[in-house]
């Protein structure tokens, strides 16, 4: 298995190439562009035999993928921020049409004000669209998870679209050594799509019909069941991937030093790496803290969150986005998952790292300390600048 030095963006491109996608449709947006530029090179050089549709918008990109998938093609697109928001209607179309489209998303803040930097608002805002969502911590994880996402999305019990996200610049533009499986390995792990496209030439079939109240609800329930089932299937797929490559990323909620922890912080994406080093540093100073990485946000790992909470008294949830009028989305999901439990840890929500603000070890350490002390508001924005107020009040 060759080791390459890849950016997160190129990890996406290599994964799509290794998956031998039939159809790519994409539209450029910073910081996603390199993903599709590289795929364009692969197609132009003949390294990848795929149809690359240069669409005129993200909305069209996803429609093109959905329609191609309906005929049985393996499809891939990638976007970020405004592009993902423009796709929103089509995200629902994809899951409703049971189109196993795989999409790479570079997590980027939404405008206004303009920002091209890391923030999870774009993907968190899509949580109700019926897409499986994975958040990656490293470029290795980007590549591995994207390959797994194809298999998961196309699994006959699942047939749902999946997105694999990576933090803008921290992953998209940062190179790391990545072990890239060989084509033979990937072909074994991910055979060509078993063409069960619902649209078959010559057949009087229809996909997406007008549906009356007597049946619509059943269609939605089928998606709900498929999403639930995808959680089980993912374990099987990750085990298979492990057998093949020797790598396992620990399921939907991998944990770090939580066994005897007094307080655990839950993170998504690249903040996890910094938080891990903070855990080590705090432990050398005698603070029993641990870490849990929310790798899958959809389906939400309710079972794993409950297991974690059974042995921990304080959990902090770090959200790199905010749901206005409520709290961070991961926080409310964790709280909801724990409500029926008899042992309910104290919960705190940290909202930080928005619009590319660095989540420094100091800021993260502050979160662990606030957790251990148990003070401060339930929903805390611990890294706000006082200066912002000074500016506002002149």
């Amino acid at each position: 298995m060759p080791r390459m030095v890849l950016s997160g963006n190129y990890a996406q491109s290599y994964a799509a190439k290794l998956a031998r996608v039939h159809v790519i449709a994409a539209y450029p947006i910073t910081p996603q562009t390199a993903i599709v530029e590289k795929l364009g090179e692969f197609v132009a050089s003949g390294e990848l035999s795929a149809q690359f549709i240069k669409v005129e918008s993200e909305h069209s990109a996803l429609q093109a993928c959905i329609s191609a998938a309906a005929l049985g093609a393996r499809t891939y697109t990638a976007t970020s921020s405004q592009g993902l928001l423009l796709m929103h209607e089509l995200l629902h179309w994809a899951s409703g049409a049971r189109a196993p489209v795989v999409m790479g998303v570079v997590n980027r803040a939404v405008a206004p004000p303009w920002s091209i930097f890391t923030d999870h608002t774009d993907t968190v805002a899509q949580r109700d669209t019926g897409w499986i969502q994975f958040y990656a911590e490293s470029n290795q994880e980007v590549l591995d998870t994207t390959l797994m996402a194809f298999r998961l999305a196309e699994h006959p019990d699942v047939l749902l679209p999946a997105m694999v996200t990576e933090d803008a610049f921290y992953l998209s533009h940062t190179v790391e050594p990545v072990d890239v499986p060989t084509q033979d390995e990937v072909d074994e792990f991910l055979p060509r799509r078993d063409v069960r496209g619902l649209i078959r030439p010559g057949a009087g079939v229809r996909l997406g019909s007008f549906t009356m109240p007597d049946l619509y609800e059943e269609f939605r329930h089928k998606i709900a069941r498929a999403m639930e089932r995808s959680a089980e299937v993912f374990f099987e797929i990750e085990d298979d991937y492990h057998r093949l490559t020797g790598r396992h990323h620990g399921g939907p909620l991998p944990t770090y030093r939580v066994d005897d922890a007094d307080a655990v912080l839950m993170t998504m994406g690249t903040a996890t790496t910094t938080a891990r080093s903070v855990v080590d540093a705090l432990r050398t100073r005698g603070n029993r803290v641990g870490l849990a990485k929310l790798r899958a946000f959809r389906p939400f790992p309710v079972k794993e969150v409950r297991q974690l909470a059974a042995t921990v008294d304080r959990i902090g949830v770090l959200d790199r986005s905010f749901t206005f009028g409520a709290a961070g989305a991961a926080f409310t999901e964790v709280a909801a998952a724990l409500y029926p439990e008899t042992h309910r840890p104290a919960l705190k929500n940290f909202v930080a790292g928005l619009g590319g603000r660095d989540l420094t070890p100091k800021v993260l350490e502050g979160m662990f300390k606030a957790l251990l002390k148990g003070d401060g508001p339930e929903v805390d924005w611990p890294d706000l600048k006082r200066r912002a107020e000074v500016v506002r009040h002149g």
Partner: protein
Amino acid sequence: MARLTIPAEEYMRSGHSACPGCAATLVMRYVLKGLGPNAIVTLPACCWTVIGTPFPTTALNVPILDCAFEATGASVSGLRAAADALGLADVIVVGFAGDGGTADIGLQALSGMLERGTDALYVMYDNEAYMNTGVQRSGATPLGAWTTTTPVDATSRGKGEGKKDVMAIVAAHRPAYAATVNVAFPEDFLKRVEKTKTIRGPKFLHAFSPCPPGWRYPPEKTIAIGRLATDTNSFPLYEIEGGKYRITRKLGRARPVAEYLKAQGRFSHLTDAEIAAIQSEVDGRWARLLALETLG
């Protein structure tokens, strides 16, 4: 004995849920008769979403893929790409959309498909308003027409703006082929459809599609009104192939537009002066078309 020029094969079933006299059913029927069994139809929100009948039934013997209202052009490109990638070369991809889904909200995706050169047929059935949502004006609604959003009352005389020239927009993309067709002239209609099968690249049909409830005329008059539209030069029949215009039905002398307008309730409020203004607009467009044809 007259030769039967309309293929006998039916790809549209008798069971459908269109209004009586709906021309959009005939547009689909003729398009599919011309294309044959390899067609795959992709359909955005429009009357045909409903005409095609609810789940689990379908009105067609070929596949229908529903797509987002504004994304027909993209759906067409996706289907073509998949067919090519999967070795389904015989598949004929058809985008089938209303005037609103084509000329307004779907214009961007249509432009993308034409500019990309997708090998497919896009059919716009033009009933000159958003009919599925209950007769609201579209960019393709003609000047003076009543719709629910262009009322006729003390302050409003129906639509105050003219009809968007969709064929000109399409032509500006230099597609492989474009033509206007009218359900009132089925032989001509079929010739155009069959021609699209012989040409690679993006093809566009602008199909005239009278709508009894929306245009306020009795259902049995659909064909008569269709004929009047073309015979008055309100909806001329022509094709553009490789950039060259050819009028496919040329009349010795066109009938007065008033005959066409007066047959429909949506124009019943028009004064003689307003009708005269529409006549001169129609004459102007016809003269321009003749000039385009002579350009060769």
